[in-house]
């Protein structure tokens, strides 16, 4: 029983984490048809920035609760600055080119940004435990859990609701849906696709940075810690269907729960299971579980 609760909580928590990091990736792909490896950089930079400032302000004697503000501000700042620079500086020059080549270009930029981290923040790890310590822990069904970890589930739910609302209930969402369905048509209809692209990319970047910033207090932030995240979010996004937000949600839950089961019941298959699911889904549903609709182009 206790194991079951642990598995479920672990699974939900991990799913939430995966959803926050991968939803931005899927939005960017859906709108711009770019599988963006620098998403891992947003994540890493978000984490480093948050961890750095949480440490600084804590030393200056600010209350620990201020850490949550820092997390949010870091995510928005990192996402906006990096997102804007990358979209304007690199991707804008690549829209006409091959999808796979764009992946490679973002891979190149990801590598550059990885080392830039070392130059800016140095090689030593950062620990930003304050927000986590602040929230302490609770007991659920006889199991002690960090409250901070549980809030992850709330944050993910909030992100999901905001995405849903933004897409389905706002004018902006309608524009986006049009661009996703058919870029050329939208352009012909007078939608400013360039602007839609910049804004979308920044939103995706902020979400990626938020993932890193929010997870920072629970881990030691060390060089190269975005490397595994990006393939995991690839797996999530591919399983759900590239470009689909509900897909990212389902993908996160599937991967999160399966991993939690594996970790507790059969640790040897932990990694294997995620990618085996990814392969199986791709084999039987080549476009993922929720393949977005496509216009006829013949």
């Amino acid at each position: 029983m206790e194991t079951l609760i642990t598995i479920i909580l672990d699974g939900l928590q991990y799913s939430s984490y995966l959803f926050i990091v991968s939803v931005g990736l899927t939005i960017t792909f859906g709108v711009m048809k770019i599988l963006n490896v620098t998403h891992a950089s947003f994540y890493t930079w978000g984490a480093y920035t948050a961890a750095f400032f949480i440490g600084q302000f804590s030393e200056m004697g600010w209350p620990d609760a201020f850490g949550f503000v820092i997390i949010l501000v870091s995510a928005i700042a990192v996402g906006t600055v990096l997102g804007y620079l990358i979209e304007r500086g690199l991707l804008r020059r690549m829209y006409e080119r091959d999808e796979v080549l764009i992946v490679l270009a973002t891979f190149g930029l990801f590598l550059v940004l990885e080392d830039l981290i070392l130059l800016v923040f140095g090689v030593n790890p950062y620990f930003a435990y304050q927000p986590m310590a602040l929230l302490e822990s609770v007991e659920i069904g006889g199991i002690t859990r960090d409250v901070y970890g549980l809030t992850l589930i709330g944050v993910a739910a909030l992100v999901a609701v905001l995405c849903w609302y933004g897409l389905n209930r706002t004018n902006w969402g309608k524009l986006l849906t049009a661009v996703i369905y058919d870029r050329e048509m939208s352009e012909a209809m007078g939608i400013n696709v360039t602007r839609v692209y910049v804004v979308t990319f920044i939103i995706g970047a902020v979400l990626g940075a938020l993932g890193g910033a929010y997870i920072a207090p629970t881990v030691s932030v060390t060089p190269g810690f975005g490397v595994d995240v990006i393939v995991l979010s690839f797996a999530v996004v591919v399983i759900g269907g590239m470009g689909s937000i509900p897909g990212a949600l389902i993908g996160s839950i599937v991967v999160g729960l399966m991993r939690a089961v594996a970790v507790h019941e059969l640790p040897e298959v932990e990694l294997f299971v995620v990618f085996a699911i990814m392969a199986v889904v791709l084999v039987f549903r080549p476009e993922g579980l929720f393949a977005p609709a496509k216009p006829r182009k013949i």
Partner: protein
Amino acid sequence: MSRDRTIPGLTVALAVCAIGGYFIPDWLMNQMMFGFARALAILGLLVLWRTGLVSFGHALYFGLGAYAVALLDINLGISDAFVRLGVAMLVTGGVGTLLGFILRNYRDIFFAMLSLAFSMVLYGILVKTEALGSTDGFTVSPPTFLSAAPEGKYPLFVLICVFGWLAAVLVQGYLRSTLGRLTTAVRDNEIRVEYLGYSVARAIHIKYVMSAVLTGAAGALTAMALGQVDPDSMVNWTASGELVFVTILSGPGSVAAPFIGSLIFELLRTYAFELVPHAWQMIVGGTLLAVIFFLPGGIWSLFARALKADK
């Protein structure tokens, strides 16, 4: 059309390497072995690239080839270089044939992602399985050659050079054949190929198996040259990324390109680690961007220009 001098050029290069290799210092010989061994994988990826396909998962075959050598060594005590190489190629050919039935139906990003998934499955198995060496991998004993166990690395070096030459010559012949032309043709227009009565799926399958076997050979030779195998530098997605990177760096223009590109990459890495230890990824990333934007033909296009100016 000017006469193609690729094969004479490769042959001269082979002779120079094989003879010169006898006199060069060990560190340089090592670099060349790693570079040329990897070039075999790049040769395979080049064929795929010309077909319009980029695999983010060829570390699968690199790893299979390398681990085949290690497991033969540890479990059966087989040290013969030819047997090791042959087994590695058989294994990767077999796996490539099976997975090819699936992958041949995928294109673009989906091809890349499914390849990635398959390779990460192997990675996931390796790092968690004690019997397969887990995260540490294995050490590999030095190779023997038909019961001769010579001192030093020179014999393996010559084997790598000769095998590289052979692969390049065969791939060159292949590219000039109808099947070889089915690279660009498939990339340009699959509908036309089907309407000419040829199966695109079959064309892709053949190329995929070819690239799998070549990458398997690369993994096996690297394992022997390095004397060890490990999952992180050989099977993780970053290893696949590195293979793709060297392919782009080399350029698709010639079967000689992978050898030049791969060797330059190897030398660059060594010096970069010494001179600017924390900027290696930045150099790789920056180079990748620069090649994509300014040198779509890769390093080879610089050579081609120089060779033309020579005439």
